[in-house]
């Protein structure tokens, strides 16, 4: 029996209504140190270096009713944020790539060759409790602790330097959940959330000490679930 099927069996045996699914979202992280480092690169060598506009988020969620008013959400998620400077790919080569691929070349992530790129990745474990509003059960507000493992790497075609760290944080949010069991005859339900996360993690090795990967900021996510 796989781990997922064990979790689904356990949730099915628990009292209350439970659902399991996945979510995609975006965040607007603070990333003050990353912004400072982007200025280092811009001033010192690579003036065209750019940071991402937002962080990408995805994960698996388990949501259930603990009581008439209390709702629990457990989540295992991943967040990504970075910056890069790529060279080339803006000329005839790109034009012909698009032409040969009948325009599908636009679906390729980056046509240029990466020169400098910074990757921040976070693995997050959430345990959150929400209070559903009387008279509007589909709406709930709450929050809880988050534990995050982060890694940061600075890469070029010739070198790669990585740092990592972990630490606690918290999440507070407002959820909207579909109350019915099905959508258009399919056993799928939807939900969404707008919230704020405090997730400021300091890298912990001797070479990286002091650098903070700060995912703190507003987050927005949409989820698709199946009821158990």
């Amino acid at each position, binding site marked *: 029996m796989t781990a997922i099927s064990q979790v689904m069996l356990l949730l099915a045996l628990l009292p209350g209504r439970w659902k399991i699914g996945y979510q995609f979202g975006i965040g607007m992280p603070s990333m003050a140190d990353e912004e400072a480092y982007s200025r*280092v690169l811009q001033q010192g060598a690579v003036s065209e270096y750019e940071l991402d506009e937002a962080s990408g988020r995805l994960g698996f969620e388990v949501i259930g009713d603990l009581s008439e008013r209390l709702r629990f959400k457990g989540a295992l998620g991943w967040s990504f944020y970075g910056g890069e400077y790529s*060279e*080339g790919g803006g000329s005839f080569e790109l034009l*012909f790539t698009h032409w040969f691929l009948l325009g599908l070349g636009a679906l390729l992530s980056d046509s240029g060759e990466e020169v400098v790129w910074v990757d921040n990745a976070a693995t997050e474990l959430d345990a959150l409790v929400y209070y559903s509003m009387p008279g509007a059960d589909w709406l709930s507000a709450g929050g809880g602790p988050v534990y995050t493992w982060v890694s940061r790497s600075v890469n070029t075609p*010739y070198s790669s*330097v990585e*740092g990592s760290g972990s630490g606690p944080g918290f999440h507070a949010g407002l959820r909207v959940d579909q109350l019915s069991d099905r959508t258009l005859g399919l056993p799928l339900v939807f939900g969404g959330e707008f919230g704020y996360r405090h997730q400021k993690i300091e890298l912990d090795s001797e070479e990286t000490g002091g650098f903070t990967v700060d995912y703190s900021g507003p987050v927005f996510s949409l989820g698709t679930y199946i009821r158990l």
Partner: protein
Amino acid sequence: MQMRRAVFFGTLFLLLIPLACEEELYYPLSRYSSPFDISFEVTIEGVVDATISNCHMKPIRTLIDSEYMECGVHTVQWDLLDDHGDYSGDGIYEIEVLLDGDRVYYQVVEVVK
């Protein structure tokens, strides 16, 4: 026959154009694999500090520690070692020289051994 040849050479021509247009990668970072000199100009006498920081913005080497310097061009060498005398490792480094707290030299370089 002529039509087939025209299609063949036409396709070959179109396939070769991207190769002909391939540009050499512009690499904006100066790369060093051995000790190198850092030259800077002191325009007014004052106290000079020179530090090397790694890609996590942590200072790893102090080249000049609050040294009084007279006007002129000065040169200091970085031997690619950190303050512990160990090889600093491959990666991107920030070099900053301050004169009385004001930046007089700044560069970001890559070290690859």
